[in-house]
């Protein structure tokens, strides 16, 4: 069991995270302070959900460059409902998420109708979505959010080190785990991602899977948006612009194939945690101001390359073991015959 865990991507990331946390704490200062951990849990939770929004389209071999744009739209729409229309927070968030799912589904539909690559479709549509938000909101933020929304971002769960935002992230991770392990829709998503013509010929309705996945992506982008809104305690028209890279890093670092057909939920969760702790860790290590970005990249690079090397070695050892056992058995048999 333990062997299998360290073989997997998530397992490797657990190890990496543990080692790096140890270094940050031992060499630097203040990394494990409750303050730092609280922030870390806030950010990792949201980053994980941003990654999930991308993960569900990567699963079907598509890309979604509009995760941030959908998140932004949901945030601004929810904010508007709460502030201007006066809808109750719960209802407003629900309406926002429905909008997010619809915006996602629309992209899937356009992709199917035009036959264009999802990269181009979502690139163009993200620009359209952001444009609409700009026009409708006039670039004005919503800053008077009810405490029902903002509390969520500032409260803690059980211990002061853990943000309440972890709850939605974990719930979604569990739901996705179930989706990909135990539901026909999740299996179909992976089948479409791994070999679309084969899946189609086997009776999987690709169009439904594509639209469904994009809708799910939009929904999750909306959740991530609401999480950011509650953390920042405002709905800002600039939200979502910095989601592009985390959206891809989380699933890919977590072990998903960019070409589709394989994803790892636990890997993605660990990737989000690992990723968010690098920046905080380097601050504790006192890296010179302008070298932070450089150091962050190098830590990421060294960590993943080392982990990969470790896993390859384990693989070799394991195969070697099987072979040796077989050879021994064969020699034994020979002796038995003789």
């Amino acid at each position, binding site marked *: 069991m333990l062997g299998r865990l360290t073989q997997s991507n998530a397992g490797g990331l657990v190890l990496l995270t543990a080692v790096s946390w140890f270094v940050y704490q031992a060499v630097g200062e203040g990394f494990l302070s409750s303050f730092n951990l609280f922030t870390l849990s806030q950010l990792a939770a949201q980053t994980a959900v941003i990654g999930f929004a991308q993960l569900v389209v990567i699963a079907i071999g598509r890309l979604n460059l509009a995760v941030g744009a959908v998140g932004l739209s949901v945030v601004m729409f929810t904010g508007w409902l709460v502030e201007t229309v006066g809808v109750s927070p719960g209802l407003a968030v629900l309406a926002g998420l429905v909008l997010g799912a619809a915006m996602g589904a629309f992209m899937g539909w356009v992709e199917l109708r035009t036959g264009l690559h999802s990269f181009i479709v979502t*690139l163009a549509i993200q620009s359209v979505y952001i444009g609409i938000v700009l026009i409708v909101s006039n670039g004005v933020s919503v800053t008077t959010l009810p405490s029902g929304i903002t509390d969520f971002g500032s409260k803690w769960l059980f211990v002061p080190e853990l943000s309440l935002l972890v709850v939605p992230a974990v719930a979604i991770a569990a739901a996705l785990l179930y989706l990909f392990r135990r539901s026909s829709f999740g299996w179909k998503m992976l089948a479409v991602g791994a070999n679309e013509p084969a899946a189609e010929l086997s009776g999987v309705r690709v169009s439904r899977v594509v639209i469904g996945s994009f809708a799910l992506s939009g929904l999750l982008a909306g959740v991530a948006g609401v999480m950011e809104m509650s953390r920042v305690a405002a709905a800002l028209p600039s939200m979502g612009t910095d989601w592009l890279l985390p959206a891809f890093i989380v699933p890919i670092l977590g072990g998903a194939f960019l070409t589709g057909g394989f994803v790892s939920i636990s890997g993605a969760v660990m990737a989000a945690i690992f990723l968010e702790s690098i920046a905080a860790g380097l601050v504790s290590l006192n890296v010179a101001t302008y*070298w932070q970005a450089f150091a962050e990249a190098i830590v990421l690079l060294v960590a993943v390359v080392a982990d990969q090397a470790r896993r390859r070695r384990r693989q070799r050892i394991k195969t070697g073991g099987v072979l040796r056992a077989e050879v021994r058995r064969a020699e034994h048999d020979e002796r038995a015959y003789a």
Partner: protein
Amino acid sequence: MPLLGVMLLASVVFTLISSEFLTTFNIYVILSSAALLAVIGLSQLSVLSVGEFSLAVGGIGEFSAVIVGYLLVRRGVPLAPALLAGLAVGTAAGFVNGVLVAKSGVSGFIVTLATGGAFAGASLAITETSPYTGLPHVFNSFGTGRLSFLPYCLGATLVVAVVVAVLYRSRPAGRRMLAVGGNAEAAELSGLSKTRAIIWAHSLSGLLASIAGVIAMAQLHEANPSAGTDWLIQSFAIPIIGGTALAGGSVSVGGVLVAAVILATINDGLILSDVDPFWVTLVEGLLIFVAVLLGRAQAWRLYGRALARLGRLLPRTAP
């Protein structure tokens, strides 16, 4: 090629909207912006050819530019050796990417993301965010000088494009990259080395990224450590709009040139037609979408079918 038609169509539309569109200066503006975009696109194209990605195009570009700027401004190195050093650094950076991607077994996405971040970070750190200015006059005029409507730097872009096109069309190295991109297993079983093709592709990409960095530097008259920030999406969008397959195996250099001009035209046209700033983002997205859609042959078939359907409906609805 339908994409070329789109380019002409866009020009006609903008000419109708703005009388300034076809002025010498405006054509120069579009071409010099396209000159840079095309090289950025080619840098990504070369990694796409083997079916890989590079997220380090911007990082390598600005890093090379910063190195050139450092040598010129801080060290007083003459222009030619400084430029050569910059291109060498870019190529070496690409080579490192290639080796890491091909040998480590880590997804190229993560590798280039990290190295790209490292190069961008190093550029910021070396300059402490202040661009190097006071570049030689000849260099600056290479970036912004022109012969009537032709920017000088377009010459560099065209030379680069021709070289890349010939490489992918007729040189074994180019064909090997494409073979690996088209079907890596087949290529390997036929005795081609996937590893070497990937290293080649990334090195070429690094070289092209550094050329883009140098062009950007000449256009800005400074070595700006964040010059490549916007390049990420553009580097993908240009080859893909131009018809290069994201999955590898086929590239279109001509498509990159046309796509670069189309994007430059759209950006230019948005300002020329004095679109309300709040509408710019929306209109830009729509224009890109329409351009791409019209650029595909199958789209025309789609319209044909829609028109035919309309035609079938008409007699019935007409009295």
